[in-house]
């Protein structure tokens, strides 16, 4: 695993917040309600680094990705790319940002337009950028397809002719055409079968080493993240509750939620079978976000303080940060 360079990060999220205003019914007297989906999220990704973002469903992982991709805009905070505020980019600068940051989404069925040929799909970023002649576009598309292990004969075919794994590779190829510096991988393999999952993960790893890209790997699969990421960010109800180098997190599991995640892991072998002591309580929802520490209703260690006061994220010297009153730094 490469170690992160200490220089200026490639991408930085600063105090990112996202609120939603729930639509109010006409004539209704009830006040409009805002829910907070993301709250003060800070995160940094260095060159050639893989940052894993884990958390349960609805914790705000995809929202974070959408904001980075400018598919959504933050209610507060900034996204900085090479030190520039992404929210302010337009015209040429936005274009160049778009080529540098490309996504790969979870569902290989929904992410390829069923009516377009593979050549068009993969070539779209090149075409839209308007900087490439036809021949060059074709060459680059072929190159990208080769990089993900597909042949030229795929060009004229349509998505439905491919299996899930192949589709995901096409989606990756598309992301690669403009040689981006950062890939936002939102659950890139969750929809795939185990055997195929490994193929795709291997491919991503290979590409990273070859093209020196950075990855933001979003997943709910702890095993996967711990396996490939350099740093891990654990998200709960829109806030980062623990963040640090993978090794340190996997070993120390300081935050009770992180611990619960690790404890919920299923055994890899029947030998390791044990009585599961899962955390109790229902999945949290931003609609009824608890006061204080967002995790306290499900936390066995919660005290009175947790119920009223949200713990700040405090980092130790090694850069391992935790947001928990109970954890001593």
């Amino acid at each position, binding site marked *: 695993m490469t170690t992160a360079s200490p220089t200026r990060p490639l991408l930085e999220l600063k105090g990112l917040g996202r609120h939603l205003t*729930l639509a109010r*019914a*006409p*004539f*209704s007297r009830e006040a409009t309600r805002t829910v907070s989906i993301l709250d003060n999220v800070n995160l940094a990704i260095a060159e050639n680094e893989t940052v894993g973002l884990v958390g349960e469903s609805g914790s705000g992982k995809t929202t974070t990705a959408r904001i980075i991709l400018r598919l959504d805009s933050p209610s507060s905070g900034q996204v900085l790319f090479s030190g520039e505020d992404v929210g302010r980019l337009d015209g040429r600068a936005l274009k160049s940002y778009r080529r540098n940051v490309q996504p790969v989404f979870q569902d290989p069925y929904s992410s390829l337009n069923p009516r377009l040929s593979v050549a068009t799909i993969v070539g779209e970023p090149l075409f839209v950028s308007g900087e490439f002649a036809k021949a060059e576009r074709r060459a680059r598309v072929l190159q990208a397809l080769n990089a993900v292990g597909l042949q030229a004969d795929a060009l004229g075919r349509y998505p439905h002719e491919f299996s899930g794994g192949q589709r995901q590779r096409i989606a990756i190829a598309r992301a690669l055409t403009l040689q981006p510096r950062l890939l936002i991988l939102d659950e890139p393999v969750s929809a795939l079968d185990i055997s195929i999952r490994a193929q795709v993960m291997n491919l991503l790893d290979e590409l990273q080493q070859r093209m020196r890209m950075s990855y933001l790997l979003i997943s709910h699969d702890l095993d996967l993240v711990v396996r490939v990421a350099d740093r891990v960010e654990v998200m709960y109800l829109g806030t980062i509750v623990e963040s640090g180098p993978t090794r340190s997190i996997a070993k120390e599991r300081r935050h009770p939620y992180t611990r619960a995640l690790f404890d919920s892991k299923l055994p890899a072998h029947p030998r390791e079978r044990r009585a599961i002591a899962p955390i109790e309580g229902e999945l949290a929802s931003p609609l009824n976000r608890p006061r204080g520490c967002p995790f306290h209703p499900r936390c066995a260690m919660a005290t009175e303080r947790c119920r009223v006061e949200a713990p700040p994220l405090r980092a130790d010297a090694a850069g391992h940060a935790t947001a928990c009153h109970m954890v001593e730094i």
Partner: protein
Amino acid sequence: MGSFILRRLAYAILSLALLSVTIFFFVRVTGDPAALLAGADASAEQIERLRQEFGLDRSIPVQLVSFLFDLVRGDLGRSLFYNIPVSELIMARLPATLTICAATFALSVAVGVPTGIWTAINPDGWLDRAARAIAMFGMALPSFWAGLILILVFSVNLNWLPAGSGRGFSSVILPAVALSGYFIASNFRITRSAMLDVLNTEFITLTRAKGLAERRIILMHALRSSLIPIVTLSGINLALLINSSVAVETVFGWPGIGTLLFDSIAMRDFPMAQGIVVVIGVFIILCNFVIDVLYAYIDPRIRLAA
């Protein structure tokens, strides 16, 4: 649910406002009714008097505002031809139209829905094939043509049923049958396909896996879910029904709102035409509003969602 209904109500009111303004302008651009009404030998002065009488000498915006004000008060003006309040005449004629529409609607549901259910449970049987083929052509059957043929057969040749409107229930039979061809077919088709869809869902698989009686599965679970598309279609069909009733009313000399509309535009009885279209519009919009409420009744997700 309250907020859902309020929103639909707001839409309904918006649609009504839009409708009224549209009608108003439609009517104005077709020409000056006063000259037509005054008759062939009328003098300019007579025409002018009529124009004043009907307020046609005022500017268009003024007319529009007063039209809308009157509308809100429920005043649809006075018929130029019949010379009585429009609303009175509409109220006198509405029952006739509603009678055949209701009869047609009832017939189309009573025949179409059960057939749809049956064929969805037993797809590709002979009944299914036959019903689908018949439906295909039922949808192609011009209702006024069906009406003509029905009159020929049942009123002229067999002399079994009346061809006009004066004989109470027996008068309703022919027009309702003539009108219902399309609607039976469309109810049948929507029920069948909605039921087929629902029967393929996982929750129906679960009801089967629970070992429920087939009748309960079909009537309680599958049908209830299918009701949503069926009800949606009913909303569209209602508008269509009122539309197609014009031709059928003509064929049967039915003293309904359709013939009234037809004649009043032909006679440039603008307040009348305007009033009818508004009333039909209100009726359809109201029906669609009721349908929205029905959704809420059928589907708790709509009813209970914030």
